[in-house]
């Protein structure tokens, strides 16, 4: 399972190019957003509600189409070849909702097969569930009795089993208790070490600073700040965030 990607890709694994989304009601959800996530990197998108983080992820997943610009997964333009692009991505949502009448193993079996992995066994599923921290006695229980944290673990287990080179995470730690949040971040660290490219939207400034290679701050559909971990080493991210969100500063076109 712990496949480390050997070949370092030159081009970004996830990329947003001049990404703009204007809804029919006139709302400008994304305004010329550009960023890149290379192999073995974690990019954290920070921003308040309605900043455009989820819209960006939805465009990567081709759940909505951009008004202009494009998103690429592994170099494939998502709205032009959505099915091909989705073969290279896994997704974990804010509130992982799987089929409540299925057990954890059944859900894993369904979603990994749906992701194209048809040769995995129950033992593989169990190993991954244990890796993400789900106790063995929960593996055969129906999802309807699971807590949010347990469902989140199943979601990340599905992403791991799909073994795609890129992972999209939509506020994955929201609502998790500190211990579960920490475990989750450790897991992300491991996945990055395996060579996965991860795009994560989050409200959690501190965890973002701790784990991300690059942090982008979004406000009203614009990517107003983008800095690497090294650039933020001595900066007060919280202060920066508040200032950018208040609209005092804007540095990214």
């Amino acid at each position, binding site marked *: 399972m712990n496949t480390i990607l050997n070949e370092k890709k030159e081009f970004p694994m996830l990329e947003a190019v001049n990404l703009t989304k204007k809804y029919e009601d006139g709302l400008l959800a994304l305004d010329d957003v550009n960023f890149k996530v290379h192999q073995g990197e974690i990019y954290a998108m920070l921003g308040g509600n309605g900043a455009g983080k989820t819209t960006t992820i939805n465009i990567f997943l081709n759940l909505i189409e951009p008004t202009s610009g494009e998103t690429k997964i592994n170099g494939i333009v998502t709205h032009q070849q959505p*099915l091909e692009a989705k073969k290279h991505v896994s997704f974990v949502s804010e*509130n992982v909702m*799987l*089929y*409540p009448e299925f057990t954890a193993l059944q859900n894993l079996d369904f979603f990994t097969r749906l992701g*194209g992995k048809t040769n995995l066994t129950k033992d593989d599923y169990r190993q991954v569930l244990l890796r993400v921290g789900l106790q063995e006695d929960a593996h055969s229980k129906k999802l309807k009795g699971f807590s949010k944290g347990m469902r989140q673990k199943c*979601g990340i287990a599905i992403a791991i089993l799909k073994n795609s080179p890129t992972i999209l995470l939509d506020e994955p730690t929201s609502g998790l208790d500190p211990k579960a949040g920490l475990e989750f971040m450790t897991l992300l660290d491991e996945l990055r070490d395996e060579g996965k490219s991860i795009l994560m939207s989050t409200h959690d400034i501190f965890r973002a600073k701790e784990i991300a290679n690059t942090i982008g701050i979004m406000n009203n559909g614009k990517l107003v700040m983008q800095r690497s971990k090294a650039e933020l080493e001595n900066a007060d991210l919280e202060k920066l965030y508040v200032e950018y969100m208040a609209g005092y500063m804007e540095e990214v076109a």
Partner: protein
Amino acid sequence: MFRLLVEKELKNIIQSPKFLATFLTCSFLILLSIGIGINEYFNMMEQYNTAKNLAKTEMAQARSWMALSAKAFREPDPMQIFSAGVNYDIGRYSIVHERQDSKLQNSVYSDDPIFAVFRYMDFTFIVTVVFSLFAILFTYNTVNGERENGTMRLVFSNAIPRSTFISAKFVGSWLGLVIPLLVPILVGLLLLVVFKVPLSAAHWIKIIMLISTSVLYLTFFIAFGILISAVTKYSSVSFMILLVSWITLVFIIPRIGVMTASQFISVPTVAELESQKDSFSKARWEKHYGEIEKVWRARNAEMNGMSEADRQSYREENEYKWFEEDDKVRNEVQKEITEYSSKLSDDVRNRKATLENLALNISRISPASSFQLAAMNLSTSDINLKNRYEKEIQNFRQTFSTFTQKKQKESGGQAGMFRISIDSQSGVKISSGRDESSLNLREVPKFTQPSHTISQAVVPTIIDIGLMMFFTLFSFGGAFFSFNKYDLR
């Protein structure tokens, strides 16, 4: 991919608690309806045989061929186990007599009105009402439920074409509902064999067709449920729309067909028809009497100035000719009245037929009506059952009358009158003119049940089956196109 999605859909349905409840309810209702149907069929057969034997005994009491009357009985059909249709509404027998109109009388509902109030719960009723309700209960959130639960985003984060997803939803829901419902139906069919219900090959063909039609009807509601689920964002909205649609399609439209049609086509009642006939007849005769009076005045005027003897001789000379002329005119008047009366009856019959067709066509807007009409046709308990019997009984009446008239003539013809003789020795003596030995009941023609071939049962169902297919394809097509534009977020 498609197979995986279908399997998931199937598992999702079968593992849900509502599936167990639905399966048990349907199994219980189907087996109960078939069980009651079998029992009712055997009861009616017993009544039919007893009534036939009694009628034979009654015939044996007849005093002459002219007094002989027969009874034509409607034989119960085993297909009524599946669809009672109009079976209990129309009479079970008709008295056949030369001088009496033959009409089916003594329906089950006229004997036991309580059943008319609540009707029988047959297989067709269960499919029409219960199956369709379960179909919408299982499909109302097929698409929007996944969006609400959040599983839609996760599913479509994989390389799944929308067309595959919606097709798998349809096939999965279909398999998840139809196959489990076929189990109690097959057990029900086994009951028919165990209880030795006399079923011919034609009956089995009709039963298979009826089950296929039931599956088609259920398929429509599955497709319709998915359609509504794919055009709405929230499952609470789709549930309300489907519930209202279900009530409209299953209960309202089939009933408003006749009411709406009668707004467009008025059919006079029997009383109105008779009154129209009577007024015409009365007016025509009055006119005729007026004309005759004028004619006779003219004839009398021809004799003005003649002596009484000449008048007498003139009258005797022309009287026969005058009577012939009068008779001819009278016959023409009678003919005119008969023609008018027949034209009125034809007109009413045509209006009735047009009304019936319009009513049925209006009600066919609903697949529930189409299904019920198809089920009744296949079960030979359709709206024309009464006409078929009455036509056959009319033919039998014709044969029966010809036979009794012929026999009456051969036996000396006393028309079953009584002979009353008064004798000072023995007093008053009443005797019939019957020659006991001349009534051989074995020669009496027997009533044969009207034939209704498979093609006669199947051909009228084609339009209904076609309509159900159209509605199903329309619903699925609608769901398919709606889902292609569905907001997956």
